[in-house]
């Protein structure tokens, strides 16, 4: 969706606030926000794609005003309510008032180290061959779905070159909406700055995106 998350090429946000000796967390609540988001996600009630979509669906004024951990927490509140893991009354009150759902998983303290070290691979086997090879010229599709996509607006309808074939991965556009994993080949596609930004673009810079095969057409 063309939400406030799709920031590439936008203007008006002012200088980057670079903080010398930035601490890992700025508030005690940020630590808990990070951890509670990861632990709740580990219950297995939603995919990373759905959680990204939930975050980008926040009203743009909220998305651009909240700190990033607040975006996480606000999306988490929504996900809990959407999945029925908790209702809004419970979320406001901060206490359980109804029995829990059965979840596929629960992350226990003893398993944290192993779970983090293992991660969650989004790579999937795919028997059909990759449609494109390094060096191929491709054009990204023009599309403006209201649903989740990982093709940013600035890179739609643009001519690029396949730089690498990265393997096959879960397709976020389907998976975010409960449509299944539908693995797709992923390519690093590189664009000249002139192609993306036109007049006045830096003559000596390029931008790549990692594009799922359905985003691409042969050019």
């Amino acid at each position, binding site marked *: 969706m063309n939400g406030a*998350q799709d*920031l*590439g090429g936008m*203007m008006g946000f*002012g*200088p*980057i*606030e*670079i*903080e*010398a*000796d930035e601490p*890992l967390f700025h*508030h*005690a*609540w940020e*630590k808990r926000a*990070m*951890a509670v988001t990861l632990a*709740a996600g580990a*219950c297995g009630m939603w995919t990373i794609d759905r959680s990204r979509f939930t*975050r*980008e669906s926040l009203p743009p004024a909220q998305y651009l005003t909240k*700190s*990033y951990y607040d975006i996480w927490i606000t999306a988490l509140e929504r996900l809990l309510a959407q999945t029925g893991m*908790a209702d809004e009354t419970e979320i*406001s*009150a*901060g*206490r359980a008032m109804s029995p*829990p759902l059965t979840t596929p998983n*629960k*992350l226990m*303290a003893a398993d944290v*180290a192993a779970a*983090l*070290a*293992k*991660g969650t*691979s*989004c790579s999937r086997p795919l028997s059909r061959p990759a449609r494109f090879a390094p060096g191929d010229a491709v054009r990204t599709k023009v599309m403006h779905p209201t649903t989740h996509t*990982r*093709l*940013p607006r600035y890179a739609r309808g643009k001519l690029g070159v396949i730089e690498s074939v*990265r393997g096959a*991965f*879960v397709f*976020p556009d389907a998976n975010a909406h409960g449509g299944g994993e539908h693995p797709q080949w*992923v390519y690093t596609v590189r664009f000249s*700055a002139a192609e993306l*930004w036109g007049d006045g673009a*830096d003559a*000596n*810079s390029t*931008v*790549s*995106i*990692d*594009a*799922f095969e359905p985003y691409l057409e042969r050019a």
Partner: protein
Amino acid sequence: MIDHDDDQDHSEMSEVASRVRALETLLTEKGYIDPAALDALIETYETKVGPRNGARIVARAWSDPAFRARLMTDATNAAAELGYSGRQGEHLVAVENTDERHNLVVCTLCSCYPWSVLGLPPVWYKSPSYRSRAAIDPRGVLVEFGVALPARKEIRVWDSTAELRYLVVPQRPPNTDGWSEEQLAALVTRDSMIGVGLAISPGDAGALR
């Protein structure tokens, strides 16, 4: 956002703090989460998983050509050789700066970042200012970070739009012949592995960032 004591005052931040506390209590009461797991998650990122991991990888690549070759071919497995793997580093790619080329990593769509080798991203990496400008004005962004590249130096921006996570291998500073990996790793800043900085040159006064 640079308010370190918190949760007591009546600021907007406190409103978030109480929502986070409410969630933690609720999810614990429901039995969905183990509060001790939260402590373990925090401890991991506070003490085990951070940019020192990436720095050791870079130092090894500078020191060991065979490792460097493996890193450039399959960074996920090369990082695992040093014990760094897992969450938000499942599909790692290393990109190397050269005399001709500088690499810069961004996630314009959210905050994708190679956690397994750099830890949690800094606030600026997740900010609209950085995310909006890194792809359209990378040279200007670098200047804001104090890195003025000559116009002839190519900049390659990597927008992390899928599940690949990018680690920039900065150029090895001159006058470091014979340095140990440990000595070299101390030159490798977090910012240099995102591509908004360079490795520290011996003699530079700059603190690690």
